[in-house]
């Protein structure tokens, strides 16, 4: 028992270290890419090609003066950054990076990630509330409403995935997507050669994939859904009053969340680590980088959506489409197994 706990903690530490070490480079990649898209250089002075820029930023933030605003709820003000960062990092322990590279294969893997996402809201809400600043407060209210609304749609998208793969276990969801593309048509199993059995290639999962991506953007508060920190209206939203390392923790959490959503997208819809020739880990990271790239691309090209439009999109578009997708899938299952067996 004690040995098991030790190995569990060791795996956890290894995964966290890898995530922590990758984030500075993801941030640099985004800044360089945004520079490219906006026809400017981006940070390229610190180290070769700007590679050390993020580390220089961390050093700068470490030496900043810590300011706690007057009238702030001190305990919660100090707690909030940790409440954002810890759930964001804890999600990585259930991601299957390769056939034997999953720290824990929980029986409730998908729900575990949903649960941590729903706890992540508290950090943002409390950061805004405890700062005793109206901009931060408005940002907090926006983010809580936004995250509750989009959680439902994302949940429905995950239900679709679970219905198609028949498991809540992330390891099994990936295994279900092995081999060539298969589907049931007119009472028999049709196999399509050369195409992988990824959910992203099955038409019945397309609405779910779209909802998951849009919802993922909204849950991570990334452009074009970055209303909680809309700088044109709210200065910097919920983290307006934060300085130094506490601000850095919000920043880290945002990128950790981007990595989580990317890893989840790959795991649920793009066959996880499955792929020909290259080793599984390389395939996983390759697919994951493409989704991370999508996040950056969206930030560079899409304007911020208006707040009422955001709520309208969540409740009147994504949610009904998600429900319809679940119903359609249920009918497909009846066609597949026949009425007699139910």
């Amino acid at each position, binding site marked *: 028992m004690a040995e098991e706990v030790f190995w569990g903690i060791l795996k956890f530490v290894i995964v966290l270290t890898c995530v922590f070490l990758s984030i500075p480079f993801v941030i640099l990649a985004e800044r360089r890419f945004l520079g490219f898209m906006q026809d400017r250089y981006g940070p390229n002075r610190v180290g070769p090609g700007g590679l050390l820029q993020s580390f220089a930023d961390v050093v700068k933030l470490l030496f900043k003066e810590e300011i706690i605003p007057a009238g702030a709820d001190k305990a*919660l003000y100090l707690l909030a950054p940790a409440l954002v960062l810890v759930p964001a990092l804890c999600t990585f322990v259930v991601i299957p990076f390769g056939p034997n590279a999953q720290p824990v294969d929980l029986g409730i893997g998908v729900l575990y990630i949903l649960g941590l996402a729903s706890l992540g809201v*508290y950090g943002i809400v409390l950061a805004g509330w405890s700062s005793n600043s109206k901009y931060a407060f408005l940002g907090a209210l926006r983010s809580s409403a936004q995250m*509750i609304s989009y959680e439902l749609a994302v949940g429905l998208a995950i239900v679709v995935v679970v219905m198609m793969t028949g498991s809540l276990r992330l390891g099994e969801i990936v295994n279900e997507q092995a081999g060539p593309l298969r589907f049931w048509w007119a009472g028999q199993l049709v196999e399509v050669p050369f195409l992988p059995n990824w959910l992203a290639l099955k038409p019945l999962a397309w609405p779910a994939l779209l909802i998951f991506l849009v919802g993922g953007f909204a849950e991570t508060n990334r452009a074009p859904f970055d209303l909680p920190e809309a700088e044109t209206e709210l200065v910097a939203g919920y983290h307006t009053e934060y300085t130094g390392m506490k601000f850095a923790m919000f920043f880290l959490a945002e990128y950790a969340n981007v990595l989580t959503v990317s890893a989840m997208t790959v795991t649920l819809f793009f066959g996880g680590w499955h792929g020909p020739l290259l080793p599984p880990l390389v395939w996983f990271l390759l697919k994951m980088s493409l989704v991370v790239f999508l996040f950056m691309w969206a930030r560079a090209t899409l304007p911020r959506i208006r707040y009422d439009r955001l709520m309208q999109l969540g409740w009147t578009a994504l949610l009904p489409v998600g429900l319809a997708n679940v119903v359609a899938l249920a009918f497909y299952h009846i066609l597949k197994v026949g009425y007699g067996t139910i």
Partner: protein
Amino acid sequence: MSVGQVVFWLAAVGAVLGAIGMLSSPNPVHSALFLVFSLFCVAVVYLLMGAEFLAIIQVIVYAGAIMVLFLFVIMLLNLKRDEFGQDRLFRQYPVSYLATAVLGAVLTTAGLAVGLRFSEEPTLLVPADRLANLLFTKYLLPFELASLILLIAMIGVVVMVKRPRGG
């Protein structure tokens, strides 16, 4: 003490302290957060009993969704304790202490009668698919009734909140 026992005591004490904090905190936002903490600790206890599905649903539904809504409303109204006015229920304090003492005595006797012990083996190990099977076959009627009651409550709230046109 084994790892399971340590975690159990941390979670159990945490749950009780969270509940006490919720009741005694002067700030409504702090109260809501203490309740979240308490619910989270209860989820950990479920986890120790092997009911991982129940635990995660507890976190998603209670600690996640419902309490965020509570917090949202508390913050939106910006409630302060002094805005509640004089506590008008002060005459009921002795009765509430008495009721609490009786309830405590009953629960303690029940616990002693059963003989509380710490089991290292998870006792409630039910995978999600078996739970779903039971819910949609044996317990279908109560399940549907519960969802109907929730639906009625929801419609009731909408009807009560809706103002008549031009009113």
